[in-house]
């Protein structure tokens, strides 16, 4: 017990609880503004899910993560693949994507499964995977992360697929898998992304003849709606009503909050439905929160909480006893950061708009419980260690 109190990552837990509270408050306000009883009660829903998630959190935290990874990582990964296939076959279509299976979204769970499996593979130096730190190891990682990514992309859900990439990359870098090659690849990816953006920029900038645009876009491996999103990202002012519309609305909503905000429960954007009603409690919940709470109490405080959560989660890598624990902590921290950065970044035009939940705030029980489970495993890494000198 003394060990528990000492090794428990209180900072991470406090940030988690604070974020759950903030999420419930944000959803309560947004739901009330939606003016429907169902939506107004969603925050309670989320609290129950949080309670369930916290129960799992502690169960996992008290379970030795080594046993957990040994026993669970492979079946969980296999299960994730099965569910991802199942959702493509039997899932429910919503907002242009086939993402729902019964009551949950397999793609959200699969993120944690991939992190666990990657940690297990590269962290514990399994006898059948010993010393695979070269290119072969990288290829193996590509396959094990690539299969679920491909399945998620088929839903299609680009955002979710993309958050896995930084998490896995960070884990591979930390595990020392093909490090030089990976760094080179990252550099190449940066150049590639820049080239891609440059190409779209060149093709879509005002006054470009249609033939030239066609010729340029022929080499851009993106779908039309993705190109239009990139274009909106590059030229937000050109496209006020169609693709750039959401960005304009979200920026306006956030900006209208000002320094101190309009006050809790007094946001105008939802009541007047300035943002897509379905997005406002999901991907755009930050806008509503920032409008009501303002820059100081809303945005900065929330960013601080996320920073504390991410960094304290990453800190577990320092105290972790073995590689597996280190990788799980780093993976989870990166996943959380990616979600937070992409979600908030897209609302202010830093990142192209893509559907991605904001941890703890966005409506979505699957992702909430997944994140809590992941943090629970990280907590277990923190608890199940020996004293550091």
């Amino acid at each position, binding site marked *: 017990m003394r060990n528990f109190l000492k090794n428990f990552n209180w900072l991470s837990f406090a940030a988690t609880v604070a974020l759950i509270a903030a999420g419930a408050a944000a959803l309560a306000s947004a739901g009330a503004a939606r003016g429907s009883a169902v939506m107004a009660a969603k925050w309670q829903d989320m609290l129950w899910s949080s309670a369930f998630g916290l129960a799992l959190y502690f169960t996992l935290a008290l379970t030795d993560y080594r046993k957990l990874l040994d026993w669970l990582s492979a079946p969980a990964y296999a299960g994730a693949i099965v569910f991802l296939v199942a959702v493509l076959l039997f899932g429910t279509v919503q907002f242009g994507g086939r993402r729902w299976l019964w009551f949950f979204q397999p793609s959200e769970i699969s993120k944690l499964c991939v992190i666990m499996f990657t940690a297990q593979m590269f962290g514990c130096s399994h006898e059948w995977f010993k010393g695979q730190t070269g290119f072969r190891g990288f290829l193996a990682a590509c396959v094990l992360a690539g299969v679920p990514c491909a399945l998620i992309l088929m839903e299609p859900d680009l955002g979710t697929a993309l958050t896995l990439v930084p998490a896995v990359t960070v884990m591979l870098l930390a595990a020392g898998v093909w490090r030089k090659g990976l760094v080179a690849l990252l550099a190449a990816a940066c150049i590639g992304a820049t080239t891609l953006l440059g190409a779209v920029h060149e093709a879509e900038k005002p006054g470009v003849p249609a033939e030239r645009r066609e010729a340029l876009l022929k080499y851009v491996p993106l779908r039309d709606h993705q190109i239009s999103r990139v274009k909106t990202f590059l030229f937000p002012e050109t496209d006020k009503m169609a693709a750039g519309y959401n960005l304009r609305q979200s920026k306006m909503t956030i900006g209208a909050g000002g320094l101190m905000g309009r006050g809790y429960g007094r946001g*105008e954007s939802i009541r007047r439905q*300035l943002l897509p009603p379905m997005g406002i409690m999901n991907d755009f919940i930050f806008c509503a929160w920032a409008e009501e709470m303002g820059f100081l109490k809303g*945005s900065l405080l929330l960013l601080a909480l996320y920073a504390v959560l991410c960094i304290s989660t990453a800190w577990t890598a320092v105290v972790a006893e073995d590689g597996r624990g280190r990788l799980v902590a780093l993976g989870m921290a990166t996943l959380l950061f990616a979600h937070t950065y992409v979600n908030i970044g897209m609302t202010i035009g830093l990142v192209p708009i893509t559907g991605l939940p904001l941890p703890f705030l966005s409506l979505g029980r699957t992702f909430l419980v997944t994140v809590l489970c992941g943090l629970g495993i990280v907590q277990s890494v923190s608890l199940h260690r020996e004293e550091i000198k």
Partner: protein
Amino acid sequence: MKREPSLNGIVSFALLTLVFSAGFTVLAVRLRVEQVDKAAQHRSEMETQSFRRVQTAGLRGGIFDRWGTPLAVNRLSLCITVDPGAYRGGRKQGETVESRIMAALEGMAAIVGRPPAAGVEAVRRHLRVELARPLVAWRDVTEEELARFSENARDYPGFDCNADAERSYPQGTLAAHVIGRVGRDRLPPVSGGERMNFVEKELRGREGLEMQYDDYLRGMAGEERVFVDARGFATSRETVIEPRHGFDLRLTLDAGLQRVAERELAGLRGACAAIDPRDGAVRILASAPAFDPNECVPVLRSEVYRRLADDPAQPMLCRATAGTYAPGSTFKPITALAGLAAGHSAAEVYECTGAYELGGMKIRCARTWGHGGMDMAHALRESCNPYFCALGMSAGSNAVIRTARAFGLGQRTGIDFPTDAAGVVPDAAWKAEHFADPKWRPGDLAQMSMGQGQLLATPLQMARVAAALGSGWLVVPHLNEALPAERRPLAVPASHLREVRRGMRMVVDGGTGHRAGDGVDAYVIGKTGTAQVGYGANRRKNTWFIAYATPTAESRSDEPIALAMVIEDGESGGGTTAPKVAEILKAMYNRKEPAT
């Protein structure tokens, strides 16, 4: 067992923390730009995007007669409206807001029991132009329809019942020309001078008193803010400025007398004007034929307009104030006064031989063989043409013209009414301007002396002449009861007026206009007139009667009245018009309604 922290973990943590910190810093900086630096800009952008300003119309004031009888009021018209916002979401494949609204309207039509007023084109237009506002689907909903609607309104979202004010004229055609009519207008915005997104159509007076007192009746526009969502559908609304109701207008008009006058004029073409000679309060202003102003509500439809405009009887013409007629013999009292002013005596006897000869032209008297010798009073009593020709010729053009103008002829009366014809009192300059023969000839004077020739007057002007003859005051007629009396004394000696009144009394008391006084419980003086217009086959007679009545001990009313009535294509002033005037006077003065 203590152990060293792993170097790998520390390096990873440090690098990752660096990346995280950088990321969160970028977010914080960008959020600061949006929320602090650009906050005001975003907020104002949000304001303009998120509400629409609607100018709402105030309720128009009513018009009432002097006793409070409503002449123009607002009728509540129940409307069933549908808010497009209720159909914005939850669409199935292939459905549009328009198709959903049309489907709902169809379903509702089965319940209400009649097809909606708004067709697919109207719905489309509404969605394009007035998305934030409810669409009026049914107007003038009956209580029965409303009951059916209320029972089933829940089946279709967005439907509501609103009360809309519609102009209504409860007395029908009564005083139609006086009240006038209204039209619906989109007004330029009034409040604040800022741009309105929607301006409710407001009733504007187009004719008559509705136009004259439009500003007074209209009230003040209000402002409503409709909050809209990003697609422009209304989400809620609030009143910023309550519209202010217009003021009620109380008239001097007497609806009862007006009705009698209109009854007497029914089926004819003509007009009647009556004023209180003391202060110019207009009691009757009737023109026939009339139109029903209710036909012009809510809008004057083109087929109704065509019918009214193409009618040769000109039902839209307010004959009482805009119809100019030769006054005929009703002008003779003025000639008489001109003669007296020129030094003639009322007692002078003139020998009527049946015609007045003027340079080879003969002006005939009504009595072919002449009236023989008579004085002024008898000349008025018999309306002797040669007498007044001779008197006018003797008095001279200037005297006759000056006297006519002293009675307000040839000038607008100054009534608070949009149409107020000046009529014509011709003189040499006028003739030179209007006629090929510019010379002012003796014949012109002779014609004018008996109220013919180019002389033109409106019934209202002649009522004013009657009032001036009876009271010695020239009044400015007014219809708004709140207006103060405006009058000035006639520049005519009282003794002259007494002579003329004596003659005018004899007109009613056994003279040409005796039928105007028959059975009237009041002291009536008057003058007949039969003005000939046109020549040959077109020759017609407009028959006049002007009267001035003062109450006697038996009279019901204690007010005097001055009245003029003209009937187009009548037989004679005494035969056609005088009995009708008597009916009006009886309605005013007689205690017992005459058995009809």
